[in-house]
């Protein structure tokens, strides 16, 4: 359903009850209009009837006055006849005056000479009424034989000695009443009519023959109710509404027939006004619905049209959307949604790009790997050919065998590197850390890289610190780091280049720098030289050899040792510099298994008890400590240790923790319990190096915790350091 249709339905829904109410109001209005007309017409009918009644009452009064004539009372009928004649002369509408006895005997007929009279005829009912009631009566229209013209009779009873003696009657011409009706000034087209009790016309305007009957519909209405409102047709056939009244005096009916067209004109006008109002309201409502529908629908349509383009469009509001708040909000929401969608798309694009980049690097790495692995195959194949060739000399054959050995070794190393790299990237590389001298690490690396350096005819200079430096490291791996860097330098330096290896101590850090005067690294490549698959932009110039795996592996190894590596270069052709920084873990002073008693500040001899359930450990450690010039005693278990400690009161006890029967913790507590035991320096020498183990040993009373394998130098330094403190304390005692 379209929005506009919806609005029309809305308007129609709202207007329908209103229409119904308006129609009802219209109907009520029409009814009211009719009733107003009816009330007015009824009023007119009443006043007309009053006029008729007044006319009749006037005639009756005149007749009653005559009835009370003294001549009549005195029985002087002749005089009375004369008096009647005078009265009749004064009443032009009167046709006659007659005096009749109650029995019906005519005594006087004023229309005829005295003494003559016609017999009473017509309208016997009103005569009888007057006799019966003793009150004046008014008759119906009658043709009459005495009076040929139609007339109505008014009758008045004449009383003598309390009894009715005569009835005085006067026939009146209806034309007199017609004049009364005409005096009502009924609008033309209307009908005003007076009917007698027999429902025959007494008078009518416009004229009809007096005495003719009223219409059937009017008669039926009058028979139903004495006063009211009749709808029907006039004798002329005009549809009319006829309000009518009945006179209490005469029993006659007076009606005013109004053409329906006149009555309904007002109602029609009211209906017309109401209808026009409804139509106008409907029109306006529909127009407004159309207009608002358009105002709402147009921006929505604009939004819908813009919807498809939101992804790419700017954030500017859609034209036309700002006129209606809700639509403006919708517009903003759509823009917001579009922006979110755009961002998401961009993010996806970025991820896709990154993945493509990673994929590309991987492909290039594979290409490089294939190259690296293929390279040794060339001399191998050549060597095989040479060995097979009969012209080959013994020297050439020997050389070829060496080539095969060399290249196989090289290839094996390549594969090892690959595996190492894989271990590093999975976090599976195991280091066999031990205390090792920098000098021996460098020597080993030099030896490994010698062929590559000689091959390039390079000159290698090595500068090491004057003082021996010791590291806590895996010597094989560390040597690999250095040789990788040397190989790299040899490889990327044109023949006859200069390679320099420099090691410096800076505080607790060792800086190893390998620099060359080779091809260098372009600036944009620097951040990527250690990346696993970083061959991408390097092009062919730097593609061969180590960069693919070598430097990535080197970095992995350095980081596994807790160090860092960085590359520096002034640019293409300006040489490269690789700087490795490694922590120096131990502050070694003298080289390992040193000959006895090096003259130092504290060359004092200590009495030391070495305790371990493994005999080899006891013997070797005791030998080392004796070599350092100490007085060494041994024990093979906890119990023995406590006994020996009580007997010897050593200055230092080196106590293994994990021993059968009495373990190191218990032994320590017991030794502390010996008199003087609290001041003995007790050192845990154990395979366990977790934090928890250190806490446990401290709690048991150990002064220090060393993890096997113990570095003799470190042990010696510790003994001298702690022993010196303790010595001062005990010495003072």
């Amino acid at each position, binding site marked *: 359903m379209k929005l506009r249709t919806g609005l029309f339905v809305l308007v129609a829904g709202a207007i329908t009850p209103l229409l119904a109410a308006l129609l009802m109001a219209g109907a009520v209005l029409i009814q009211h209009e009719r009733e107003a007309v009816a009330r007015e017409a009824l009023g007119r009918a009443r006043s007309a009837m009053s006029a008729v009644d007044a006319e009749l009452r006037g005639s009756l009064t005149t007749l009653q006055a005559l009835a009370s004539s003294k001549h009549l009372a005195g029985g002087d009928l002749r005089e009375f006849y004369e008096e009647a004649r005078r009265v009749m002369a004064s009443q032009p509408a009167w046709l006659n005056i007659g005096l009749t006895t109650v029995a019906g005997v005519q005594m006087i007929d004023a229309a005829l000479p005295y003494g003559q009279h016609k017999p009473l005829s017509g309208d016997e009912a009103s005569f009888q009424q007057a006799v019966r009631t003793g009150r004046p009566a008014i008759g119906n229209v009658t043709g009459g034989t005495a009076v040929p013209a139609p007339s109505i009779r008014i009758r008045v009873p004449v009383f003598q000695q309390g009894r009715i003696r005569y009835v005085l009657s006067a026939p009146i011409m209806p034309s007199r009443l017609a004049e009364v009706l005409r005096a009502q000034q009924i609008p033309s087209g209307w009908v005003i009519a007076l009917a007698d009790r027999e429902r025959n016309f007494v008078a009518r305007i416009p004229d009809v023959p007096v005495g003719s009957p009223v219409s059937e519909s009017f008669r039926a209405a009058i028979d139903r109710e004495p006063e009211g409102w009749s709808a029907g047709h006039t004798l002329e056939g005009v549809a009319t509404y006829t309000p009518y009244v009945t006179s209490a005096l005469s029993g006659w009916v007076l009606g005013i027939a109004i053409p329906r067209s006149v009555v309904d004109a007002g109602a029609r006008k009211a209906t017309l006004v109401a209808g026009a109002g409804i139509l106008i309201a409907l029109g306006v409502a529909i127009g407004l619905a159309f207009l608002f529908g358009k105002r709402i629908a147009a921006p929505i349509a604009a939004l819908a049209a813009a919807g498809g383009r939101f992804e790419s469009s700017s954030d500017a509001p859609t034209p036309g959307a700002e006129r209606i708040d809700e639509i403006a909000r919708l517009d903003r929401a759509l823009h917001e949604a579009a922006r979110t969608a755009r961002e998401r798309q961009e993010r996806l694009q970025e991820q896709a790009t990154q993945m493509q980049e990673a994929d590309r690097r991987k492909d290039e790495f594979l290409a490089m790997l294939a190259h690296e692995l293929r390279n040794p195959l060339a*001399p191998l194949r050549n060597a095989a050919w040479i060995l097979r060739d009969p012209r080959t000399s013994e020297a050439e054959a020997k050389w070829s065998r060496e080539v095969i050995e060399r290249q196989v070794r090289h290839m094996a190393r390549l594969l090892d590197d690959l595996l190492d790299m894989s271990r590093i990237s999975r976090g599976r590389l195991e280091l066999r850390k031990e205390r090792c001298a920098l000098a021996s690490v460098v020597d080993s690396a030099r030896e490994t890289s010698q062929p590559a350096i000689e091959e390039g005819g390079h000159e290698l200079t090595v500068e090491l610190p004057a003082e021996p430096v010791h590291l806590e490291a895996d010597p094989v791996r560390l040597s690999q780091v250095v040789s990788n860097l040397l190989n790299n330098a040899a490889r990327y330096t044109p023949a006859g280049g200069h390679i320099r290896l420099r090691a410096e101590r800076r505080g607790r850090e060792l800086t190893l720098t390998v620099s060359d005067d080779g091809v260098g690294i372009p600036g944009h490549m620097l951040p990527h030289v250690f990346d696993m698959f970083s061959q991408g932009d390097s092009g062919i110039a730097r593609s061969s050899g180590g960069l693919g795996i070598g430097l990535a592996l080197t970095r992995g190894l350095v980081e596994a040792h807790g160090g860092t590596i960085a590359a520096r270069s002034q640019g293409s052709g300006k040489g490269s510099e690789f700087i490795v920084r490694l922590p120096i873990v131990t502050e070694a002073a003298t080289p390992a298994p040193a000959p006895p008693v090096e003259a130092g500040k504290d060359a004092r001899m200590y009495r030391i008890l070495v305790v371990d359930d493994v005999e080899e450990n006891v013997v070797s450690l005791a030998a080392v400590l004796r070599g350092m010039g100490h007085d060494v005693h041994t024990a093979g278990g906890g119990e023995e240790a406590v006994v020996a400690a009580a007997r010897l009161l050593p200055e230092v006890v080196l106590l293994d923790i994990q021993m059968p029967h009495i373990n190191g913790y218990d032994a320590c507590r017991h030794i502390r319990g010996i008199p003087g035991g609290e001041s003995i320096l007790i050192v845990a020498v154990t395979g366990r190096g977790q934090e928890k183990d250190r806490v446990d040993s401290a709690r048991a009373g150990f002064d220090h915790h060393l993890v096997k394998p113990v570095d003799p130098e470190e042990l010696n330094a510790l003994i001298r350091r702690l022993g010196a403190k303790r010595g001062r304390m005990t010495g003072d005692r």
Partner: protein
Amino acid sequence: MTEPKREILVIDDEHDTRESLRIILEAAGYGVRAARDGSEGLRLQESNPADAVITDIFMPVADGLETIREIRSRSPRTKIIAVSGGGSAVRNPAYLETANFAGAHATLVKPVDPDELLAVLRNCLADGGQ
């Protein structure tokens, strides 16, 4: 061998490859010079251009392709055989093609069968002779 000894320049950064090729080529009766990179190779070409150059394309110091172009422009008569180390389908066909464009007369993939290398070399030199 009535004609003068043909001189071959071998350029390869790998010592063993160079030296083994030297033995093979000398056994086949060629005179051999060897260089470990492109710039050294170009220096050797300057004084007395070789009849043919066998060069590795992936070389660290000077781009193998650049070397090929240089040799072509300086000594147009020298035949060039380009050898690529990579066997991967990813990039090497493209590189070898590029080598062709750069002016190599033949392109081979490592590890080259010495007999094949000698055959290609013979063909190249025979063309050049005519």
